[in-house]
């Protein structure tokens, strides 16, 4: 008896399609179910009916040697393919994936991991029977579904298909659902045949070639199944492919030409497994995924096939209440009623998402769209993370991670959660280490947050955790580094360290290593830093590297890491900095000098926090010589200021240096730059030290008009860095000194700070009075 072949053209995610597939399968009772999917995953197919398997899940097909080359095939509960697999397994029918193996596909240069399965849903299409595709020529990229929807008078393909197929509910009185489903599939086939017949195929187009190959492979698999003696074969595939897989098509094309097409394809080694997936990734909102706008809604329709309106509205009301927005049961009833009336007004047999949303807006939200926006993601997309049974083949690294997660009671969740870790507790410390290690492996499950509590405590760490399904791939990717999280992180760090010769990167790496407590990696990384810093010619990099290391040295002990290891590095770095600082500060332009000043400041504050005499003394010594060297005046000024603030320099000395820098012999530009370096940041020194203020005051007064104009902007910039009260106090101090002539006896040539001679001014006042008509 020749085998019968039935083709069920579906859309990959659609509750209506799924339900019809089930009805059709029940009716046809096939002994083989062939599904458009990657044969690479054949070995793991049996897990689909595992008790602990809960969709959304995805098949992950990857190259073990190059795990970043991977493709996902997501399945939700309402995916027709998923239901077909489950049906076949329930009824002990043979189930097979028949698409072109992923191992034979041409790797798409750069968007492999990104685009993955998306290609399928631009292809799977269907149409309404009474309106065959009218456009004469449809390029597949134009998306036939859209075209057909437009022909039927709909805005978008999704809405049109949704209304026709997915949201169609089966009336109870319907005698034979299976019969009905088969009729619909027949109609879909007709429509798609019309689309395919008018379609223009470009021989050279990559997508078209790929598509031809995939269909050839599917045909070959069907032939093979017939040969093996299966008598009732059902093929579940994207509607777009349906017309090319029928027994007619099998005969028309012939196995020879198919073999020809499939000859000489590349062959790569692949492995497959199931990974948990999320609704988010099923929706288009995230940029990629399998192209369903509203998985939450589809899931709902799948669950509540007959009467979706009331349960949906109840869900809306619950979500609104969670956000503290009033939504009473009366609201639920009224909005469900409105949605149903709207649907009948629009001639629909069942309410759709549009009607429900509009009713919600009008009844519950008073036409204010904001509350709806708040719950939109939870409602329409749905926050849902699938799970896979423990026995699913997984890379050892993933198993290790799962074990660690279990031990530390850190459950992956698709929702954002904040985690405040107190590192004085053993578990929290372990958790923090795990998260840091994962970060090193680029598995960004947790994101370090700025602590909300004051940042002075070093034992608090705040993380934002969100599990994203693509992290599963990152884990597979990271698996090449090792079989446990610790081991992999350590190897990855060592590898990074070996490859990097950038001192700053290395110090950041060291920081990570210490946070992640990778004991085995600390020493090599530090050695690497030593080596690099020894040959580093640029003191700027050394200066940049020192503060983070100093932090490690200072706070490392809180995390129970051996900070002593860092100490030699810091000492070595500082020695090199001191040696190289002089030349590094020579011949700087203004911008470079400003940057250098900032670096010196940072190093200074790092060293101050370390509070180690043996480290800081050579540093001050170096600054002192630097201040006297012929370097950029701004840096020099800064050196003296640091020394003054650190009380290494007494005020008398400081006054001498200021006076020297500001003396007449110096170019005013030099003097002002020096002054900027010296006083910028805080004006307190001027408030408290009148001598210094006097020197500066005298210097300013001695400038002639033209020079003053030139210098003024720099001075203004300098003084503007002071706090407002500081500026005021300085101003008051200057005013006082102007009133008390004895305080400025040493500067007889200075003019009054207000800028005019009172006595001379008084001479003109009588005339002025006269002019202004003042009676006095």
């Amino acid at each position, binding site marked *: 008896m020749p085998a019968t072949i039935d083709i069920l053209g579906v859309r990959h995610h659609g509750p209506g399609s799924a339900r019809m597939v089930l009805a059709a399968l029940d009716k046809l009772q096939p002994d083989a179910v062939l599904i458009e999917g990657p044969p690479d995953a054949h070995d793991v197919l049996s897990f689909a009916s595992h008790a602990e398997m809960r969709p959304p899940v995805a098949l992950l097909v990857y190259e073990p040697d190059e795990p970043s080359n991977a493709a996902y095939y997501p399945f939700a509960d309402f995916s027709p393919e998923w239901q077909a697999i489950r049906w076949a397994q329930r009824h002990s029918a043979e189930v097979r994936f028949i698409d072109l193996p992923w191992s034979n596909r041409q790797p798409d240069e750069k968007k492999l991991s990104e685009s993955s399965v998306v290609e399928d849903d631009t292809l799977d299409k269907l149409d309404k029977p009474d309106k065959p595709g009218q456009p004469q020529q449809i390029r597949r990229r134009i998306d036939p579904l859209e075209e057909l929807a437009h022909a039927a008078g709909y805005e978008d393909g999704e809405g049109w298909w949704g209304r026709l197929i997915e949201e169609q509910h089966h009336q109870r009185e319907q005698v034979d659902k299976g019969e009905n489903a088969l009729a619909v599939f027949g109609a879909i086939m007709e429509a798609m045949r019309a689309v395919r017949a008018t379609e223009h195929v470009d021989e050279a187009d990559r997508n078209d070639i790929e598509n031809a190959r995939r269909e050839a492979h599917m045909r070959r698999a069907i032939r093979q199944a017939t040969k093996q003696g299966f008598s009732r074969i059902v093929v579940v595939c994207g509607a777009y492919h349906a017309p090319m897989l029928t027994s007619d098509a099998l005969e028309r094309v012939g196995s020879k030409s198919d073999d020809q097409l499939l000859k000489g394809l590349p062959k790569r080694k692949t492995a497959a497994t199931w990974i948990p997936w999320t609704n988010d990734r099923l929706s288009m909102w995230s940029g990629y995924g399998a192209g369903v706008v509203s998985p939450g809604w589809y899931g709902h329709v799948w669950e509540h096939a007959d009467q979706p309106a009331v349960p949906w509205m109840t869900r809306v009301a619950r979500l609104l209440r969670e956000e503290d927005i*009033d939504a*009473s049961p*009366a*609201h639920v009833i*009224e909005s469900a*009623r*409105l949605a149903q*009336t*709207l649907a009948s*007004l*629009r*001639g629909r047999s069942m309410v759709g998402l*549009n009607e429900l949303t*509009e*009713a919600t807006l*009008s*009844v519950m*939200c*008073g*036409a204010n769209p904001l509350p709806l926006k708040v719950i939109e993601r939870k409602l329409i997309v749905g926050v849902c993370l699938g799970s896979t049974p423990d026995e699913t083949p997984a890379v050892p690294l993933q198993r290790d991670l799962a074990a660690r997660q279990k031990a530390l009671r850190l459950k992956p969740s698709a929702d954002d959660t904040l985690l405040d870790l107190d590192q004085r507790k053993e578990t929290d410390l372990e958790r923090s280490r795990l998260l840091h290690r994962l970060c090193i492996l680029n598995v960004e499950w947790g994101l370090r947050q700025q602590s909300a509590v004051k940042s002075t405590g070093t034992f608090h760490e705040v993380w934002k955790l969100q599990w994203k399904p693509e992290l599963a791939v990152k884990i597979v990717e990271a698996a090449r580094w090792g079989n446990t999280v610790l081991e992999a992180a350590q190897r990855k760090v060592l590898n990074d360290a070996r490859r990097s010769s950038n001192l700053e990167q290395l110090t950041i790496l060291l920081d990570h290593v210490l946070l992640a407590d990778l004991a085995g990696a600390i020493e090599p990384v530090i050695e690497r830093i030593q080596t690099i810093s020894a040959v580093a010619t640029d003191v700027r990099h050394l200066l940049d590297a020192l503060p983070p290391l100093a932090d490690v040295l200072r706070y490392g002990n809180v995390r129970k890491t051996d900070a002593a290891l860092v100490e030699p590095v810091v000492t070595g770095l500082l020695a090199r900095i001191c040696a190289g600082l002089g030349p590094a500060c020579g011949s700087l332009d203004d911008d470079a000098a400003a940057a250098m000043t900032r670096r010196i400041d940072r190093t200074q504050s790092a060293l101050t926090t370390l509070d180690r005499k043996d480290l800081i003394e050579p540093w001050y010594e170096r600054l002192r010589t630097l201040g006297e060297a012929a370097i950029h005046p701004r840096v020099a000024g800064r050196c003296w200021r640091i020394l003054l603030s650190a009380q290494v320099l007494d005020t008398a000395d400081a006054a001498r240096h200021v006076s020297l820098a500001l003396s007449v012999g110096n170019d005013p530009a030099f003097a002002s730059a020096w002054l900027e370096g010296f006083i910028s940041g805080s004006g307190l020194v001027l408030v408290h030290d009148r001598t210094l203020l006097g020197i500066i005051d005298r210097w300013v007064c001695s400038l002639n008009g033209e020079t003053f104009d030139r210098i003024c902007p720099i001075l203004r910039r300098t003084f503007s860095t002071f706090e407002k009260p500081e500026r005021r106090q300085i101003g008051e101090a200057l005013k006082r000194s102007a009133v008390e002539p004895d305080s400025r006896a040493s500067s007889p040539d200075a003019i009054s700070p207000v800028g005019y001679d009172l006595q001379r001014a008084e001479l003109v006042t009588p005339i002025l009075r006269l002019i202004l008509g003042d009676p006095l």
Partner: protein
Amino acid sequence: MTATVNPAVTTLRQTAESEYAAELAALAKVDDREKPPRWRLSPWAVVTYLMGGKLKDGTVITPKYVGNQRLIEIAVATLATDRALLLLGVPGTAKSWVSEHLSAAISGDSTLVVQGTAGTPEEAVRYGWNYAMLLAKGPSKEAMVAGPVMRGMTDGKIVRIEELTRMPSDVQDSLITILSEKTLPIPEINSEVRATKGFNIIATANDRDKGVNELSSALKRRFNTVVLPVPDSLDEEVGIVEQRVKQLGRALEIPAEPPAVEEIRRIVTVFRELRDGKTLDGKSKLKQPSGSLSTAEAISVMTSGMALAAHFGEGTIKANDVASGIIGAIVKDPVQDRVVMLEYLETVVKERDGWKDVYRACKELL
């Protein structure tokens, strides 16, 4: 209305149901869908009446509302579910217009109106008394004077309440029983009026005005709300203005030619730019005047321009004819808005190609 004089000739403005009687009749003829009790047309036909379209028998229905069909669908569906409808929107977004046409299409009668003002008494909403009879015979059914709401309830018709939020709160709340229990108690004679099927309320309110009486949440809960937005695009708004100006010109018998689309486009552009606070190309920011600058105002600027052109001008609309209207619409506050307008003239209008005449005409008046 006496039958001797044709009202269409003398009435300044006809009710929707008489002005569009032909369209309503044509719709009723082809309408074979199910109608809610006492509705003249099916919900589908009501939507078609408002949105316009061509019927099977070739009759063209003019669009009454230019905008999103979904909104009108929600409005009609709301009335069909016996929930009251609240039309919200800034002034001039066709709220009253829509409510009038909805009641004309559904009940064939748009005259049951309560105008909400700060002084609307409860009697206007419920019922009053014929005091002579009340004194002579005491409280009785005969002594009662039914208000529009009461009449709508007995006749099963749509009642319109204009500017609901301007009514005092206690008067607003007298609607609660009517809306939730569909009865109007008359405690004086220990009786009540029960609403006949087909009765419903369309209220309009604007959400821009200050000093309105916010609806109590008990009342709000009994309304389905539909917000009528300002037109989305320039073309849509130009279309609305053009259509209405033509109709009004005919109704008011202004002997001027209807204005060219270009002229309308300029006025609408001015209104939209000032309303949105930025130029249409999105390049420069503008100060916003205090008025709401609705489409309705643009329409009245055009019609007054037409009248000016007809009686004092050259018969076709020139910039001079609309300038006073524009300024009148924009400069509501003589100090602040004047600055806004001057700035707009100097920075935007002056630079625009072909807008010299507008610039000069407005500048003269300011």
